[in-house]
């Protein structure tokens, strides 16, 4: 398909990345999510404070910038639905889990504060889901799967794909639980609905994660190696 055809098919509309808006979560759920997000953030700051080298900082900035841009690119999945990258697994695999949490938090916070994508009361839940859960699930699953393949710690793209897919799936389940607890949508309805859609979206997450990691490995293999050794 040529770009011209593609342009004709896709009307020029703004990206509609929606994160959880205010109104979807009960006050109690939103506040509990804020509390968990703040605890995780404080821990992430403490960990990176000890472990983060200044050399890694520009890479953190570049990854935050890339994730922000890539999240705008909603890709179509089945049934008139779109999905977009989260990026938590990508960033965490590259930078380690806690620097990943910080990078993702910066992205999600700017989206809420400047772009009105995601509510302010719901920001805690959005940070918890896309910042903390996606990064930690992506990272630790990547490490676990990679160990099954080989004992040597080197980048394994198949493991990264699987970890990225799971990070989206688990994040969507977390969101469904929050919607259920809030009384917005019964959990037995919200959970399968969110999980099914995001099982598809996760394939896109895996593909973009693998492409980005392959590009970085090709241009700067030392970045991948050093960050892996540091974590």
């Amino acid at each position: 398909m040529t770009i011209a055809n593609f342009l004709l098919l896709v009307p020029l509309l703004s990206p509609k990345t929606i994160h959880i808006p205010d109104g979807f979560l009960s006050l109690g759920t939103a506040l509990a999510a804020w509390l968990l997000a703040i605890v995780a953030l404080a821990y992430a700051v403490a960990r990176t404070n000890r472990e983060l080298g200044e050399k890694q900082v520009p890479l953190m900035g570049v990854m935050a910038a890339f994730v922000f841009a890539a999240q705008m690119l909603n890709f179509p999945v089945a049934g008139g639905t779109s999905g977009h990258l989260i990026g938590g697994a990508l960033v965490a695999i590259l930078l380690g889990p806690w620097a990943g949490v910080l990078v993702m938090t910066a992205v999600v916070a700017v989206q809420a504060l400047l772009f009105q994508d995601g509510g302010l009361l719901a920001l805690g839940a959005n940070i918890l889901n896309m910042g903390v859960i996606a990064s930690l699930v992506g990272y630790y699953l990547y490490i676990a799967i990679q160990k099954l393949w080989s004992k040597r710690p080197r980048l394994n793209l198949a493991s990264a794909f699987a970890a990225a897919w799971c990070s989206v799936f688990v994040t969507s389940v977390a969101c469904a639980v929050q919607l259920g607890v809030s009384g917005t949508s019964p959990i037995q309805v919200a959970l399968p609905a969110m999980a099914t859609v995001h099982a598809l979206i996760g394939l896109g997450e895996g593909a973009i994660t693998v492409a980005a990691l392959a590009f970085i490995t090709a241009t700067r293999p030392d970045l991948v190696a050093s960050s892996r050794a540091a974590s």
Partner: protein
Amino acid sequence: MSKKSWWIIGLIIALAVTLLSPLASPWPDGLERVAEDQGFIALAQGSLYEVIPDYVLPLVANEAVATILGGMIGVLVVFGLTVGAGYMISRRGAEQKTS
């Protein structure tokens, strides 16, 4: 590719990605789809204030251009915020180590 220029190239790539943003699928995303199907989309509240709502920079007539500009502003703000916070955190850590 030199090590020093790598982050500049990375930032340029991120800015270039925003050029694709007008091509993004306008279909509702996963959460929005579920909210529509399950009938709770109407619960969504508007925000208290708007700066660059829906990633479209206000006062720019062409919506595609407005979206790209909105995206580029976001890329630069997120980059600046992350690098600023990253240096603050890593410097403080280095001071604690030496003291």
